[in-house]
């Protein structure tokens, strides 16, 4: 007779048991803040289309300390998400070959920061002088 009795360990609270999992949950939860921010922005667009008074009300609401605080938190969440995304992007894309040599992961990651920097500078330029 078999005396086998394999023991299956429970998964409860798994994400608290390793710092890697905590950072993963943190990364995934940034989506909540980015999602709320997108909704706020959409409401702003609707307000803009409903006339000057509505738009000004929305602008005033955005100056509420709670709204300012939320935007700071949402910005931090988006920046953290971008950093984690830049670091995993080389895993998601097919390997890049230049002159018969595989482009190292570090160069791809750095390249994304440079590209993001250029885009932000162009956007800033357009806003300030466009």
């Amino acid at each position: 007779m078999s005396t086998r009795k394999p023991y299956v360990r429970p998964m409860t609270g798994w994400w608290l048991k390793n710092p890697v999992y905590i950072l993963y949950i943190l990364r995934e939860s940034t989506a909540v803040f980015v999602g709320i921010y997108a909704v706020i922005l959409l409401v702003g667009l609707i307000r803009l289309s409903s006339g000057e008074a509505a738009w000004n009300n929305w602008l005033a609401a955005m100056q509420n300390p709670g709204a300012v605080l939320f935007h700071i938190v949402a910005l931090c969440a988006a920046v953290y998400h971008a950093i984690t995304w830049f670091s995993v992007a080389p895993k998601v894309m097919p390997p890049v070959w230049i002159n018969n040599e595989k482009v190292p992961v570090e160069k791809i990651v750095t390249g994304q920061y440079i590209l993001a920097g250029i885009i932000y500078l162009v956007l800033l330029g357009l806003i300030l002088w466009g």
Partner: protein
Amino acid sequence: MTSNDKIIEIEVLRYRPEQDEKPFLQSFKVPFTDDQSVLQGVQYIKDYLDGSLSFRWSCRMAICGSCSMMINGVPKLSCKTFLREYYPGKITLEALKHFPIEKDLIIDLSDFINKLESIKPYIIPAAPRTLEQGEYLQTPRQLDRIAQFSSCINCMLCYAACPQYGLKPDYLGPAAITLLHRYNEDNRDSAKAERMQLLNAHEGVWACTLVGYCSEVCPKEVDPAAAINRNKINSTMDYFLRFIAPRGGN
């Protein structure tokens, strides 16, 4: 053992199916020298302190993939991890996470073996060559596409690192998908269409949420997270391409 030996405390999660309802921690004091691995510490326990302790091991040189265990909560090869790294703290050992414990540090790995078999981890050529025709040739560049992914030693550390596998045991998992990728990308193989069905399934690549820990714990730098996530693109292409390039009823 000499008088210069240091003593380290090793706690082991024991589970004896005939006697125990659930696992419990048992502590041992193990003398060691700086060149001794955690595996050697466990072997010391079995040889001198408690002969009933059960664990798997074979090569002692990080190539057979047998001695995987959780070392202070991190999946590691115990032959490649040294006792000195933890001294003067203590070490807690546990069977690989996310697998059923058979006894002490031994897991039931049949689920992994079945998944490994299911991906057909061997070359399936379009037209088999006869002995007279010679071997299947491959250029260094073609080899380079798969070399990294073929270094897997089936140690299952990536499964112990993957919470999605722990939560959804049906998930094909990091090593099996990586080996699937390795054969799909091999220019000598032509069974891609067959293997894509496993990848496209809900239990295939789409069960992965890119926690990325599998690649961090891999002792052979195989980077399973890369293999899995590149196949999310392949799986998507496979889905959409069927509309413009039907496979003639395959």
